[in-house]
């Protein structure tokens, strides 16, 4: 089954084309990495899929349903959540509140003003469980804005997975982390991607080859190859376009 399907997607900013005809099938349950040199359009691609920008042309289908040009909250409600490359949290809310706000929609509380959040058992239990999972339980009452960088990255992932979305997009989840922090993040990503479809943009090749079931290589707004890691490593076009330099480094 195909969880996410991109059909001939184009995006231009003014006259500058950034995404130039991307087609891609992401299978349900797979961990799919998108790699490519800086400026290839990886983040833009995520922004199109998650509804932050509307594509210039082309179509995006989530579980077979078109979501092209929909607002982010509509796409989220259909089961796609994303994280951000630049940490994008609720800085003045506590860590716990960050997570609890992120579970509310998926549990069906919507815009309710008749119930107190402290009385919502399912929301609080799930929030506690997610805090444990992202290892921030000891920091639950701290303002999110004063967390360390690595902690904010973990919270970023926590917010993304809190709503139990079937398809999760992670934008450079280990960027700016030390080796140890990145290793912990890989464990976390591996555990949260159980039973979900994961698409991630990542620069760290060891993380990519460690985690991904399949890899797509995006160069100047086009996907030049999509395949399993071993064959991506061996692909001559990929080597010349991008990977050789990165692997040697």
């Amino acid at each position, binding site marked *: 089954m195909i969880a996410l399907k991109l059909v001939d997607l184009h995006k231009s900013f003014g006259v500058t084309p950034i995404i130039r005809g991307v087609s891609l099938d992401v299978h349900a349950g797979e961990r799919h990495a998108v790699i490519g040199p800086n400026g290839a359009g990886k983040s833009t691609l995520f922004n199109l899929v*998650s*509804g*932050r920008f509307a594509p210039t042309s082309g179509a995006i289908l989530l579980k077979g349903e078109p979501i092209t040009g929909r*607002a*982010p*909250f509509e796409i*989220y*409600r259909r089961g796609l*959540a*994303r994280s*951000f490359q630049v940490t*994008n*949290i*609720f*800085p*003045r*809310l506590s860590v716990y*509140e960050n997570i*609890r*706000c*992120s579970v*509310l*929609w*998926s549990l069906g*509380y*919507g*815009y*309710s*003003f*008749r*119930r*107190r*959040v*402290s009385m*919502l058992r399912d929301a*609080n239990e799930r929030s*506690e469980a997610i805090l444990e999972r992202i290892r921030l*339980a*000891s*920091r*639950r*009452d*701290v303002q999110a804005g*004063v967390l360390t960088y690595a902690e904010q990255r973990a919270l970023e992932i926590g*917010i*993304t997975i*809190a*709503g139990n979305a079937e398809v999760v997009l992670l934008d450079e989840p280990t960027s700016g982390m030390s080796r140890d922090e990145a290793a912990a993040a890989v464990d976390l990503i591996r555990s949260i991607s159980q039973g979900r479809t994961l698409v991630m943009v990542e620069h760290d090749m060891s993380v990519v080859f460690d985690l991904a079931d399949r890899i797509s290589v995006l160069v100047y707004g086009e996907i030049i190859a999509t395949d399993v890691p071993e064959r991506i490593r061996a692909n001559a076009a990929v080597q010349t376009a991008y990977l050789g330099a990165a692997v040697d480094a």
Partner: protein
Amino acid sequence: MSEAGRATGVLAPSTRSVLARLEQHRLWLVAALILVALPYVPGLTGNFGRSLLSQMGIAAVFALSYNLLLGQTGLLSFGHAVYFGLGGYAAIHLMRAISGGLPIPMPLVPLAGAATGLFFGLLFGSVTVRRAGVIFALISLGVGELVYALLRMLPAISGGEEGITANRTVGLHVFGLTLGPQLQIYYLIAFWAFVSAALMYAFLRTPVGRMCNAVRDNAERAEFIGYDPVRVRIVVLAVAAMFAGLAGGLHALNYEIVASEAAGTGRSGAVLLMAYIGGVANFLGAILGAVTITWLQVNLSDYTTAWQLYLGLFFVIFVLFAPRGLAGLIVMHREVARTRAFFGLLRAYAIALLPAIVMAIGAIVLIEINYRSATQPEAGPKMTLFWIDIDTSTPWPWLAAIALLAIGYWLFRRSLPAVSSAWEHAAEAARTQR
């Protein structure tokens, strides 16, 4: 921080929430007792005192409703008085209808204000909150001017500048309440203020209330966890407008008159002043700001015609030096107040306060002399300031004022290092104590 987190983490979540709930209820109980006792506090037992308390209660509801917008959702409005004024008009017309024989008890009149506020909040909200920030602020200013102008153009409804009057003592007298004495009207206002505050506090703890804070912090991320920030803002604007309308209804009951200024820019500005002086992001701050500004408005105007100028200065000083307002100052001192070093800090404050007073006297004399010679030249050069007769045609009062200002400023600056070192000392003590 992490130690505190670990300490609370020891308790099971259920125990913690029960304790927290008890703590909350205790605060509300204390608040209710204070509201009941206030009109019997010496100095507040007269009509003036009780009328002041009534005004504070109205202002507190209005400021709390504004806190929902600015403090909790990050919506800076320059036209919040629109809902206060429209609610006030709905209430005053209902009061007239009751005089005409409509069988509704007078104490329920504020609900008409609330319903009107809610209606217009939904109406204007659905078109003004597409964008937050500067755009919303400017649109709110425009809506404010528009409504004010409309009210002035419809004197049959608004009574224009003279306003519409009514009598609150007619109609059904529930429990024998005539609403004649100021004490009765105070208790009615206190009741509605208490209910409003509790409801607004509860609102902030509902799913949509929590999302108000989330939208304030990061509207974009809110979209990526399933919420439409525009919808959240419409909800909060409608709720805030409802309570502003209720405050307007209380205003109608208290004064038995509503004029177009009730919806004017001046009132919209005053509530912004209350929010900043009390502390923008703080629920209690709104009440503190409302009480302080109302007190200043009522008292300063007795002493000087330049009271608005002082209010403005007060506002500027707060925004510059205490941007988190009175509530921020309290929060800042809460931990150091438990240390012994706090007394050293108080001493340093007292020492700095003396030159500050000298400086303030110099400034006040200068302002008063200038204000009077500019606005009331016919009053002549002789005036009395601080119980001293002065003649402004001679240079001496001017020189004395400038000297006080300069000397006060110089001494004040010299006292500041002692304040900051006392603060460091106290903060250090608070850290080690924890």
